[in-house]
């Protein structure tokens, strides 16, 4: 497959790859925002003392972590219509990715919050701050810094996972490669091009992580 490797065909398909790339990027971006929202809510629930919020949050997180995204996707895609919700594929896809990544994000945020020395929370208590003030002024700004690198790690996973949406007919990056493979029978060209694009996204996110780390490192403190 390599000796006849056809760059010309790749170039011919580039517009298609470009569209796929754009879809992948905005799809992942939206899903990541969703995942952050889900994650924040779940981690807040998980950190409560009472079981009423903690137990459901934990059950959800475990269930999501223990089952494949594929099963979750089908669960939403074929399950929701049974309940009478027929949503467009894109919405289902973004929902599935958000709900899935949200569970991982929740774990990351929780670990970040727990990593803040207890003394800082106590200093807040001792100066008469309420729970919300402590969280907002003392804990979260510090936790934010600790969570940035693992959050970007999760973003990388999410970008790659979004390939699964091609299963429910969302035309993203992986899909472009598969078209090249099925129309022209050029799988090597298709897959290697996809890999190159994903690698590019990976390095972008990694650069972003390094950059944000440095930026936050300047504003905050080296502890």
């Amino acid at each position, binding site marked *: 497959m390599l000796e006849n490797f056809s760059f010309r065909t790749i170039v011919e398909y580039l517009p298609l790859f470009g569209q796929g790339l754009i879809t992948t990027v905005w799809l992942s971006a939206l899903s990541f925002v969703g995942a952050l929202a889900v994650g924040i809510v779940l981690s807040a629930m998980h950190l409560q003392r009472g079981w009423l919020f903690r137990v459901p949050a934990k059950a959800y997180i475990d269930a999501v972590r223990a089952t494949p995204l594929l099963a979750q996707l*089908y669960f939403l895609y074929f399950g929701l219509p049974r309940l009478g919700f027929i949503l467009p594929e894109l919405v289902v896809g973004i929902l599935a990715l958000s709900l899935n990544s949200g569970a991982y994000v929740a774990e990351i945020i929780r670990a970040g919050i727990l990593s803040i020395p207890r003394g800082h929370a106590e200093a807040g208590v001792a100066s008469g701050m309420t729970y919300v003030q402590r969280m907002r002024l003392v804990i979260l700004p510090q936790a934010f810094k600790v969570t940035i690198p693992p959050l970007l790690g999760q973003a990388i996973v999410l970008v790659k996972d979004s390939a699964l949406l091609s299963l429910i007919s969302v035309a993203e990056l992986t899909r472009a490669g598969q078209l090249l493979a099925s129309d022209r029978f050029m799988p090597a060209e298709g897959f290697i091009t996809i890999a190159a694009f994903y690698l590019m996204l990976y390095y972008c996110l990694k650069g972003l992580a390094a950059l944000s780390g440095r930026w936050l490192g300047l504003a905050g403190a080296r502890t």
Partner: protein
Amino acid sequence: MIWQQLQSLVGSYPLAVRGLGMTVMLSLISLVLGTLLGFGLGVLRTGGNRLISTAIGTWVDLIRGTPFLVQIFLIFFILPELGVELDAFTAGIIALTNLAACFICEIVVAGIRSVPTGQVEAALASGLSRWQRMRQVVLPQAMRIVLPPLVGQYVLLIKDSSVVSAIGLTDLTRVGWLVVQRVPNGLLVFFLVGLGYFIVCYPLIMLARRLERRMGAAHGEVQL
């Protein structure tokens, strides 16, 4: 109709058992190998040799940055052109082991870096050799940090193993695809597939949580 489908599903249970067996087998072998290799890479990466460390770092980036499907594809279909002919199972094991090793390498590196420098200095000061320092002092302590994310990573890798169905191994996910041909009810079939993974993965998640808690207790952390 559901009843009829369920009956039809029951008939497929030998296939499901085979698929689950394949998933477990693939995961087990490649996780054991990947763990060994990952620890080796992690130790080398923190070893201080710039060249080796950069080489490993680049490789880990390449693997983390590309879809696993593409990696399998390259190992199974492109390596033969370079004269390395592999059967599907071996190729799957190699691809999955490599993936596991790269992720585990990162975890091990973080663990090794978390060991206070004072510990290494104490070992250095009492004249332990490089290998002795690693073996006697650093790794046992790094394990506390490494274990919880390591077990968590196992869960992710078990789920990733489903990608090997692309090269013709009949694992649990593929059984799902096969069964859905006859029982065209994606919801039901993939719910059962999900259940299969849950049975394998959930104990590991519980283990990871317990390790995490034990580690937290050892470090004197308290919940907010």
